[in-house]
């Protein structure tokens, strides 16, 4: 199901739909009653010239942002997971400062039995606080330091670094 939702989200994005609209469309593709499962999805659109980032979440963990303002969660208010045929969740927007790093991940990265998700999310944020440099290294370091040994759940991460384009910088100069 994960793969088909990813391809569908990509298709809806090429139609110019925003994050909340994309989640609403995905919600129509999954039926918890019929399929017996739901999916959490976070969807974000970044305007490359301005750094304006718009996000929406269907029950998915928040997105971590690191830029000159510090390392913090985006504060997306999640709607229910896709598959419940509900209204589209609200969008949250922030403007990044160049250069900025974004990190999205599944709950497999931080979830531990009997522990509040807040504690696990804070562990991820603190680990990112102490890391810099290439994105590959960031993902590897998180995998090594945050994921507990003998982890049973799978982990998916997306790391992205944005720097203002030369054209945008020239215009603002």
């Amino acid at each position, binding site marked *: 199901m994960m793969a088909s939702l990813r391809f569908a989200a990509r298709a809806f994005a090429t139609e110019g739909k925003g994050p909340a609209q994309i989640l609403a469309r995905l919600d129509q593709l999954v039926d918890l009653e019929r399929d*017996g499962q739901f999916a*959490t999805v976070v969807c974000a659109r970044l305007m490359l010239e301005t750094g304006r980032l718009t996000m929406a979440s269907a029950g998915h963990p928040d997105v971590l942002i690191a830029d000159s303002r510090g390392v913090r969660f985006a504060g997306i208010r*999640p709607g229910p997971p896709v598959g419940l045929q509900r209204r589209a969740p609200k969008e949250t927007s922030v403007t990044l400062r160049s250069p900025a790093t974004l990190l999205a991940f599944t709950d497999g990265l931080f979830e531990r039995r009997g522990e*509040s998700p807040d504690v696990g999310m804070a562990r991820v944020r603190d680990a990112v606080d102490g890391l810099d440099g290439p994105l590959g290294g960031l993902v590897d370091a998180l995998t090594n330091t945050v994921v507990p040994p003998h982890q049973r759940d799978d982990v998916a991460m997306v790391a992205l670094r944005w720097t203002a384009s030369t054209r945008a910088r020239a215009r603002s100069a």
Partner: protein
Amino acid sequence: MRAVVPLVGEVDVLNIGTVRDAVETAIGDGAAEVVFDLAAASFIDSSSLALFAQTSLRVGKVVVRDPPEVIRRVIEATGLINVLVVEP
């Protein structure tokens, strides 16, 4: 009619079957509201959350009663708070 379904101890994908059976019985008996009583639950995984959500599509109201704080936060963080009623 309101049916109460208790979850006891650690409930995960391996033993969710008995809870699922209790829900089927309740719905078969015509329950319009299902209350999952988590007062004696120490841990649930996503299979329970899926069952709660699934049940919410089949009956008028689904209540999650007395969840441990950790489970309450998971219900909020996954946005399921939009489709479930958490008491108190």
